[in-house]
């Protein structure tokens, strides 16, 4: 019945103006007489303080909070995160001597879509609250807030950093997410099971997680060649091992740096006894380099109280 609504609408349009007049008249009728309004202006006599936020809402704290992948229990105890990039910045903040608290979280909490991020301490005036600091700005934040930071420089730094960011990371992505045994024994309990107990949701989550890892690897090559990934990671460990040599910290520094934190992020997770690797190729390759294993023990002992 297409023609019908048109006249109906027109009628409504016509009735609009009188309605408005009527409304203002009614308003006048109900407006508060002046003496009564004066009385009411005294109200409220008492203002109660605002209600507290629910207990499980994030507490504003005086120290910055680092949001990482972890369990509530581990986060409270300050234990290492199970995610390499979270662990890198967690270790870095420990090294820099910045005081912070850990919050166990997931990617959905992050403004950038990825953990970790740092939430600066709350100010007395909420309007002045600083924005969350994404991971690539944590270094600057720590420098600005009195962290003791030593930054090795030179041509080798970038090159060896690329070993970690590409070779070892690619092998890590493959080992953790795409290698079938490891996904069910390690990645699923850590990343999938805490998110939901529904098998369908878990299935879809693990599918999206694995396809994201595959997509990341396929950016660099046309196929995912497991042998190539492993042999490149093996060579990368070899190169890192000879870079460290007999030194205590990388690049011959007297104290650990961000680079040590980046190496530790992977070595800790590959050597952690709590993780049961079904396909342990990558950790076996690492175990062959005694000085890298010793380096991990040093960082663990110094910054995680073991």
């Amino acid at each position: 019945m297409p023609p019908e609504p048109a006249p109906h609408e027109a009628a409504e349009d016509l009735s609009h103006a009188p309605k408005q007049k009527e409304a203002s008249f009614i308003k006048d009728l109900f407006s508060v007489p002046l003496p009564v309004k004066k009385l009411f202006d005294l109200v409220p006599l008492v203002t109660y303080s605002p209600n507290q936020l629910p207990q499980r809402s994030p507490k504003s704290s005086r120290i910055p909070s680092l949001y990482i992948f972890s369990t509530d229990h581990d986060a409270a105890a300050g234990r290492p995160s199970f995610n390499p990039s979270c662990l890198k910045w967690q270790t870095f903040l420990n090294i820099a001597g910045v005081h912070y608290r850990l919050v166990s979280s997931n990617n959905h909490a992050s403004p950038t879509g990825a953990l970790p991020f740092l939430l600066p301490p709350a100010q007395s005036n909420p309007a002045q609250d600083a924005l969350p600091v994404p991971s690539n700005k944590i270094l600057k934040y720590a420098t600005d807030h009195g962290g003791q930071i030593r930054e090795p420089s030179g041509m080798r730094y970038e090159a060896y950093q690329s070993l970690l960011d590409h070779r070892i990371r690619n092998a890590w992505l493959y080992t953790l997410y795409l290698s079938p045994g490891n996904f069910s024994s390690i990645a699923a309990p850590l990343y999938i099971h805490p998110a939901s107990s529904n098998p369908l949701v878990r299935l879809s989550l693990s599918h999206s997680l694995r396809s994201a890892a595959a997509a990341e690897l396929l950016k660099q090559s046309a196929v995912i060649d497991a042998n190539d990934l492993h042999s490149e990671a093996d060579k990368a460990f070899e190169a890192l091992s000879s870079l460290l040599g007999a030194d205590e910290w990388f690049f011959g520094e007297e104290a650990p740096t961000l680079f040590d934190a980046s190496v530790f992020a992977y070595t800790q997770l590959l050597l952690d006894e709590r993780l049961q690797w079904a396909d342990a190729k990558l950790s076996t390759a690492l175990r062959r380099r005694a000085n890298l294993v010793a380096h991990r023990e040093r960082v663990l002992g110094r910054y995680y109280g073991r």
Partner: protein
Amino acid sequence: MALELHVWGPGFSLPSIDPHCLAAIAYLQRAVPEGEWKLVASSNPTLSPTNELPALRNGDVWIGGFRNIFHYIAQISSGEWVLDAGLAEQEGADCIAFSSFVESHGQPLLDLSLYVSSENFTTITRPLYNTIQPFPMPYLTPNSIRAAAKLRTDHLGLSGLDIDIDGTRTQHSIIPESLRTSRTTVSSLLAASPEAHAQIRLDALARNFLEPLRDLLGEKKYFVSDKQFSSLDCLVLGYLSLMLVPDLPQRWLSKIMRANFSGLCAWTEELRIEVFGPAVTVEDALLKSPGASASAAEQQIGKNFSLPWAAPQDRGVIGVGQTYLATLANSIPVLGEYRRNIREEQLSQKTEEEPSSTLQAATIAGGIFASAALLVGYMFQQGIIPLGGEEPERQRGSGLDAFGEAGAALSIYANQMDAEVQRQRILEVESHGPPHSQPAVEVEIGSNGTVVKETTG
């Protein structure tokens, strides 16, 4: 032993337009004795088990990816054809680390310069593929390579170089407004070119890549050691020559190299001549100098070319069609994934017995064969492909003859079909009266009739 290195074809007067292919060419040129290997500009990644070039062929064995090729060469020569042997421990570690650095930091620069930048891509890079690939392939290849390049450089936030995309990007991002870096601004619209606007970012990217390399080279002759040409030098040569040599409309990359890194430029120019020889043209690589037969071209190899070019196998219409469909299949979401999984399984099995040909062919054979046969049969009927007898030893003759029979068989079958259809239609018309769209039917019958006449005549 005849090793065949299959690479992307030549461009910019370099023997290949791909950095990894250049690296592999340099490696074989230095490591493998002359006469033991040939260079084939086949420009066909579907040949390779990893679906990427360079690929090395040794008889029935195909090795894909340049790192695998280095390993394989060392393996079959029992450690003789290796460039990195005898490096000191620290040098070996540097070689590994900088190889990773060059790959991870150099690739985005080449992606931006050759593929993402609209002007460079449309005026130089895309037309180049027309010269190195047979006819239908350039419709697929450059665009898919460009898509991959865009994906790789997405995180750099320089997609503004690509002006083909719509200005109004409606991105559904979870990043709040205050944390987002703006992509298109008024100044970017006013700027003469997107490259000029992004100049500072591009300069920073290029410097991040080139400065460590300059420091590593120092006063040495080669990157790792003063005396030894290593695999790192191959890789750097591949990347740097593709940054320096191409003459592009937007030459920010070569400009910054020439202005600030004269040492690297001199090194690249010198080694480029030394390893790849003088400027390479498409005719050199494909050995199709006008008027010269294959044998004459082979005679020329010894005299003029420092690289052992061999003509790519002429795969004919069927071969090209097969490649085209295979490439198309790889880009279809579900099917492409399935085919990739098959390749990965084959790679992980690491069996030596003919890795790709049989299974790959089996998966696509049905569809491809049918469509290719129909196409070729049709071409025979139309006389597009002459059935000339004077093709003495080329494989082409035999392959097309086989399809000639197939085509003939098909045409006979088609005749029967036509007769049958006509009979049915007549029956239909008799029983139900005239069909709704009689003129169209008449036209159809008429065209069938002409085709039948041509085949019989």
